[in-house]
């Protein structure tokens, strides 16, 4: 049987590799300059951008990791599915405007944009540092995940290290050949496969559970019990069906763990903010700069991310995660006699992260061809992120390091060559880190998203608020990064290394390091902006803001809609992922009252999350389309010739 599975894995991966290399060669054959390699000559069609950016925004973590987290922590963790709204919300605020600025002033990377706006020597290395955090440890983690997936699916025949290096070599090959265009073109298929993988894992659980009605009956029995790793919540419900409060003032992981589960509403909120870093990361902004026009932004944010991926997350990821409880993965549920089958092995002690792989493995007995295809889909979901991010990092290496610091007069060909070298070095270092220093890489990788979201105030300064002064923005960014570092694993380990006893652990007060960082960052930005208004070079910054005021799209009645949209956004954040989410625990029926007492026939907290998802899509539609924040500019953008000439 293992032979059939291996054979089908080989067939599908061979076809996929051929597809990737074909597009790498096809894009390389164009033999055009560095701008083609870096930014696809700013010519990525809207639909290709929308699809590949969606795959890059969510990464394999969503398809592979979220069901596993929901399996472990229940509906309190499934609130994270609403990151399908939060992630594009960050993009709606700034992406279209950043794209317009890149067109106007010829920015190739966001580092150039921020450096031009802020000035001074600090901003460039800081933003580059955040980009490197994304490129090396974060990508290493993603690649290692795909390696483990293949190791499980091949029954141990293929080691995770070999699988990871082979997949890394493939990504390097097609991105190194074809640049960003090849990465984005392959990304279109990867996006479709990503959605397919997400749906398929849920669908497998659905079928193995014997349909939706049976699943709900099992949930009702589980809700009436106290089974699960967290026991009972404060309200007396099974903690898998409740949220453990708004916040818990505990010292944090490593010192004192929270009671009744990790996912307080504050933890959900701050974790969702951290995921916003995916669209604020410098590498993602490079991808946005490559779009031919801004027509792809709104569909990517509203329909592909929020609606399509969101649907997959709130329905299929939940069925896959909670369904695993009844398919043999939970020892406690098995012992209580609630399991309907033992298709999955007992998953505990970190083994649950392989849930998606074990689902596919259970399918492999009956349909090895589907195992091959869906394994590929999971891998492709992760590779989409890897490809776009190493391409963008190569671009930043060539533009913001080599050309900026080593050879300012570098020719077009030199820049392209060093872009390729950057791509290769990025992938090589990420794989070396994953192979030889996985623990260090995990500690660094955990900082990538919270660090990237610290760019939000800076991005808002560039795109919206001229009153945020450069000094304030840079000070806030540094303070935010320090706060992130010392509320996460790496900073605490560093302090321990130097014999400094920090009185808190990781994520104190059940607030994610991204939340701590952003709170400190915002406070510093507000304070310093108030103090440094007079000394700021406002005239230089107004070059950006005057252009945006004149060129940015705006709904004719936006003045009337703006207060409504602001109130809707605040309300949504409060009730969907903020303290208001606690209302959802038993508003539509107590979790332990049985299916007959549930107003919508499903657990109240799940119904609340589905409702929040629907309203979240409407909210995004309102701000992206109705308010026009992600609409294309009404007139062609006039380029500032002098600025573009300087940047060549």
């Amino acid at each position, binding site marked *: 049987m293992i032979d059939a599975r291996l054979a089908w894995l080989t067939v599908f991966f061979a076809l996929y590799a051929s597809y990737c290399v074909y597009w790498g060669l*096809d894009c390389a054959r164009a033999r055009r300059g560095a701008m083609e390699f870096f930014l696809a000559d700013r010519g990525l069609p809207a639909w290709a951008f929308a699809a590949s950016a969606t795959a890059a925004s969510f990464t394999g973590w969503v398809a592979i990791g979220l069901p596993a987290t929901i399996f472990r922590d229940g509906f309190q963790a499934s609130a994270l599915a609403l990151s399908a709204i939060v992630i594009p919300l960050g993009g709606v605020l700034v992406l279209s405007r950043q794209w317009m600025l890149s067109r106007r002033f010829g920015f190739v990377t966001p580092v150039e944009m921020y450096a031009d706006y802020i000035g001074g020597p600090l901003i460039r290395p800081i933003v580059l540092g955040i980009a490197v955090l994304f490129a090396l440890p974060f990508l290493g983690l993603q690649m290692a995940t795909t390696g483990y997936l293949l190791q499980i699916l091949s029954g141990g025949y293929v080691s995770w290290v070999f699988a990871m290096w082979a997949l890394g070599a493939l990504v390097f090959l097609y991105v190194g050949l074809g640049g960003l265009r090849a990465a984005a073109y392959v990304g279109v298929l990867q996006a479709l496969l990503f959605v397919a993988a997400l749906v398929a894992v849920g669908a497998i659980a659905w079928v193995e559970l014997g349909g939706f009605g049976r699943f709900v009956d099992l949930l009702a029995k589980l809700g009436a019990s106290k089974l699960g790793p967290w026991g009972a919540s404060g309200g007396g419900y099974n903690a898998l069906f409740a949220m453990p409060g708004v916040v818990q003032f505990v010292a944090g992981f490593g010192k004192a763990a929270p009671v009744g589960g990790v996912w307080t509403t504050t933890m959900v909120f701050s974790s969702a903010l951290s995921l916003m870093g995916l669209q604020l990361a410098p590498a993602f902004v490079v991808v946005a700069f490559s779009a031919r026009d801004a027509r792809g932004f709104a569909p990517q944010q509203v329909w592909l991310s929020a609606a399509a991926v969101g649907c997959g997350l709130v329905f299929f990821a939940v069925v896959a995660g909670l369904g695993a409880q009844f398919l043999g993965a939970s020892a406690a549920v098995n012992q209580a006699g609630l399991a309907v089958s033992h298709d999955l092995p007992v998953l505990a002690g970190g083994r649950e992260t392989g849930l998606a792989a074990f689902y596919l493995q259970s399918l492999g007995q*009956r349909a090895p061809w589907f195992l091959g295809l869906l394994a590929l889909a999971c891998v492709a979901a992760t590779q989409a992120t890897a490809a776009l991010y190493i391409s963008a990092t190569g671009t930043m290496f060539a533009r913001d390091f080599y050309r900026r610091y080593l050879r300012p007069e570098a020719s077009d060909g030199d820049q392209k060559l060093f872009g390729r070298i950057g791509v290769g070095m990025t992938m090589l270092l990420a794989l070396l880190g994953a192979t030889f220093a996985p623990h260090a890489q995990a500690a660094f990788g955990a900082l990538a998203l919270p660090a990237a979201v610290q760019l939000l105030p800076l991005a808002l300064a560039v795109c919206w608020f001229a009153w945020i002064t450069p000094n304030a923005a840079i000070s806030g960014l540094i303070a935010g990064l320090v706060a992130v570092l010392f509320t996460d694993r790496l900073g605490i380990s560093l302090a321990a290394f130097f014999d400094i006893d920090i009185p808190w652990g990781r994520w104190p007060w059940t607030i994610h390091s991204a939340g701590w960082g952003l709170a400190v960052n915002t406070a510093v930005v507000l304070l310093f902006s108030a103090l440094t208004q007079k000394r700021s070079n406002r005239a230089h910054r107004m070059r950006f803001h005057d252009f945006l005021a004149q060129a940015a799209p705006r709904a004719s009645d936006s003045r009337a809609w703006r207060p409504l949209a602001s109130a809707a956004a605040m309300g949504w954040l409060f009730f969907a992922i903020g303290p208001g989410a606690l209302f959802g625990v038993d508003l539509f029926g107590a979790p332990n009252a049985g299916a007959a007492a549930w107003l919508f026939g499903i657990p109240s907290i799940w119904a609340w999350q589905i409702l929040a998802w629907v309203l979240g899509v409407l909210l995004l539609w309102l701000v992206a389309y109705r308010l026009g924040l992600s609409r294309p500019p009404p007139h062609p953008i006039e380029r500032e010739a002098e600025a573009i000439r300087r940047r060549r």
Partner: protein
Amino acid sequence: MVEAAKPRAAPASREHRLAVMTGWALFASFGVCLILSGFSEPSMIAGLAGFALLIAGFVAHIVVNAIFGAGFTPPQIALGLGAYTVGALCYIASVLFDPSFGEIDVATGLIGFSGLAGAFVLYIVVNYGVRGSYRMVYRQHAAERGR
């Protein structure tokens, strides 16, 4: 006007190719897997869902062609007919030589392959009309005979 159109031609053709290849990569891979599942279970629903996905892939190809203002290229037609022929031969061989091939499998294959052929014929008839379709084939035969 002509000069302005030239540089757009290559990217448009490449994007057309990308759309076509992506569509087929998705529909064909899931379609074939479902067909295989349909024959191995045996399950007529799974098998027919697989054939339906292949037809959906064909329809998606037509829609993409319409968006890009292009038609089927000769290599695409050759590849499509070739794949259909190979699939149909495999099916016939299975019917004749595989003793585990049951009634449900035979029915699934008959309906599925007929559906695929029907979709192709329908496309030609809708696109060229009954008479036009006949003439197209007749002229081609005549040209081949003349050659």
